[in-house]
């Protein structure tokens, strides 16, 4: 092994190639490749059922892949080093319900006992800001507090690599921001994070790089900024007319408007990817007036990862 290769291994937290997992006739993961660098916060973004959780559980060594190669922190699962590898991972699973009748502190202490090197209960409760709830039963916690406790149980092992599977799904905005703070602080300490989410805002806010996953494959990869930039324009204009059929014949004319980079028609609405809103909108209004189409809705926003997903798949993340 050359020196370059050794360094390469060292700088990589997770590498997987050609990952495949089938459940009966359903192919959950269909040949997925990922390379995640040490110290990076990497997001797997995709709709429900895209194969994110299956992928993560394969990487965590909890599910066996049907095909493909997985390397985590330079080790492979099932080679007799699993326990040593687990010492270095922090894992939060989607939908784990911790025991209701244990207190917060007891739960952390239980998880702490599994590791050779770990944070104290107080340290980790301070990190996730659950110190005032340390004596409360898990069953009495709010959804956000339960999720922070789940993350606390993942952090207690002083992990090098933290897996978070939809950590903020179903949480209110404030709880979500509290969890984001925890993740940001972990990263500041040099940790690597693999995060799955179907919230664009979360991925844009936290992740250095994002892989958009659909039907078990990576369909786009890059930093959130790069992905949005791949749309070719920074804004999206959505327009609807009173007569739902009026827009369809105009597709060519819409695409020819000044500053418009792309047009997508769906359910009587048009979604235009636009570089310069101040030029495109007056031209759009003029076009509609000229064709006698009555405007019923007009909205513009900055392009997001959601728009990238829509542009790639024709579907929205939430309803895909």
């Amino acid at each position, binding site marked *: 092994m050359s020196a370059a290769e050794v360094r390469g291994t060292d700088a990589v937290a997770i590498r997987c190639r050609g990952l495949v997992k089938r459940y009966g006739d359903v192919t959950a993961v269909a040949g997925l490749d990922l390379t995640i660098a040490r110290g990076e916060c990497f997001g797997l973004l995709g709709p429900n059922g895209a194969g994110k959780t299956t992928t993560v559980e394969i990487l965590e*060594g909890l599910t066996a892949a049907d095909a493909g190669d997985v390397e985590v922190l330079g080790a492979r699962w099932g080679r007799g080093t699993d326990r040593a590898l687990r010492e270095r991972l922090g894992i939060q699973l989607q939908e784990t*319900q911790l025991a209701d009748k244990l207190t917060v502190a007891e739960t952390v202490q*239980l998880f702490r006992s599994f590791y050779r090197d770990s944070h104290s209960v107080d340290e980790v409760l301070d990190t996730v800001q659950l110190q005032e709830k340390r004596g409360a039963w898990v069953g009495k916690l709010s959804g956000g507090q339960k999720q922070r406790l789940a993350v606390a149980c993942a952090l207690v092992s002083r992990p090098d690599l933290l897996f978070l599977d939809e950590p903020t799904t179903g949480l209110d905005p404030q709880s979500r921001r509290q969890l984001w703070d925890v993740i940001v602080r972990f990263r500041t300490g040099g940790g690597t994070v693999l995060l799955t989410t179907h919230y664009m805002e979360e991925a844009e806010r936290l992740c250095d790089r994002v892989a958009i996953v659909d039907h078990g494959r990576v369909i786009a990869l890059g930093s959130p900024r790069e992905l949005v930039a791949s749309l070719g324009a920074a804004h999206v204009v959505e327009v609807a007319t009173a007569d739902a059929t009026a827009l369809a014949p105009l597709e060519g004319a819409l695409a020819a408007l000044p500053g418009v980079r792309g047009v997508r028609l769906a359910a009587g609405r048009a979604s235009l990817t636009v570089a310069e809103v101040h030029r495109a909108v007056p031209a759009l209004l003029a076009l509609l007036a000229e064709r006698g189409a009555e405007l019923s809705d007009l909205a513009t926003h900055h392009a997001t990862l959601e728009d990238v997903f829509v542009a790639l798949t024709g579907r929205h993340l939430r309803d895909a």
Partner: protein
Amino acid sequence: MRDHPLIQLTLSQLRGFYREPEAVFWVFGFPILLAFALGIAFRSRGAEALQVGVVAGAGDSAVVAMLGGSRHLAVQRLAPDEGQRRLASGRVALLVVPGDPVTLRYDSTRTESRLAVLEVADALQRAAGRRDPVAVQEQRVTERGSRYIDFLIPGLLGMNLMGSGMWGVGFAVVSARTKKLLKRFLATPMRRSHYLFSFMLSRLLFLVIEVATLVGFGWLVFDVGVRGSIATLVLLSVLGSLAFSGIGLLVASRAKTVEAVSGLMNLVMLPMWVLSGTFFSYARFPDAIQPVVRALPLTALKLTVAGDQSRKLAGVTAIRPRSGCRSKRVTMRSAAGNGSGRR
């Protein structure tokens, strides 16, 4: 030490149990209530006089007078149709129709009626001047450990060990599985053996309380003592508890939902509740199913615990087991690998 995963896992099992008031009631309270209710309902009333009717008619006074000498008989004069009604309803064990010969009318399938026949015939013959060729002396003993509650407590103990062992382990495993807690544990470096041993440890700790409560209750309220050695009782309880925890784990090993495991548990436990002789002797079941009944784990546990309870008593008073059920108990004990108590 406190941070050892085995200790922490065991603590979490214990906490999960004692913080669940319902579980505490079903494991500790229910068997005691059951023992109390059944102990009261089937308490020993002592030897009661047999109810005997004499049909009113010629010579009835003479018969009543002849029977009046027996301590074992309660005699009343009855009109013929009234006497027939009482015999039919079991309020008298036997009806005497005076005359020559004296007629004893009774149902031969009823044990107390057959006793009454012997007593009445004996009383009549003695009163008429019979001399007994052999002198007989009666020596009365009261055998401890022959009451229904003495029979019941060992059975309840076995049933309790079965119930708490199986539910305690099976339910906890399945509920951890459905809550994805098992998966979460697997994602840590936790050793699986620690997880399993934590169940055994927590079972053993509860066992002490379970056995002590029930045996203590039996002792204080019904004077059912441990006649054998405490060490044997402890050993049997531990063996029984571990065996049923193992069965619980087996039952829970494939069940995906709490509903499924409840059904499976009942499927496994119900035959043992009915057949294993907790509430009445399993000798009452037909010979054909006896091999099945004896193969049930609860039968073995109940018989060994019961055998141990009565062994020392038997040794002290030197009374040989009289009933068939009793001698079976001895046989079973040796079959269960505890043959040291053979008399």
